[in-house]
């Protein structure tokens, strides 16, 4: 699964540690999601979507689809 987490984090001027604290996870988890080594649970994905105030499909997309292009 592809994601735009790194881009969104940069846009909001947040460090990985900042984002981790806001989401209640470890910095390692944020890093693993950004590097696409780990796919977050739906619960965490929705937390991310709520935090950045974007639809979940604008942030996370299946492999092959360009993130943020889903309708």
């Amino acid at each position, binding site marked *: 699964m592809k994601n735009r987490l790194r881009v969104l984090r940069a846009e909001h001027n947040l460090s990985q*540690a900042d984002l*981790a*604290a*806001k989401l*209640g*996870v*470890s*910095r*390692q*988890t944020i*890093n*693993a999601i950004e590097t696409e*080594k*780990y796919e*977050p*649970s739906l*619960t*965490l994905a929705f937390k991310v979507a709520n935090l950045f105030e974007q639809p979940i499909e604008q942030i996370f997309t299946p492999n092959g689809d360009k993130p943020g292009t889903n309708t």
Partner: protein
Amino acid sequence: MRTVAGPNRGSRSLLWAAILFVLTLFVSMAVGEMPQLPATVRVPIALVPAVIFAYFIYQQRRQLDTGDELEQRIQLEALSIAYPLTFLLLVILGQLERVITLNPEDWDYSHIWPFVYIFYIVGLMIARKRYQ
């Protein structure tokens, strides 16, 4: 909001439980080699490390509950490596016992359980590396 980064009180409890386990293990081993002591003394002392280890498992379980979803996944993957390796070791020893006599000085229960924990640590290292 829950934060999970960095060492916490749970980690320290876990470390202290591990240290206490090793210390009581050495004491029980020393007492076990004192045949002049009655079994009513040696048996309870021999079981003290097991009680401490049960506490260690309890602390580890609590630590896992406070971890985030990635940490829980890492622990699960570590166990998914450690469990079959432990099973494999027991199968090998069981099969060997059918055809040869294993020296109990080398292969009694107390020699096997450290392998179980080593397998868990190996599994943990592999799982952590995967998500680094």
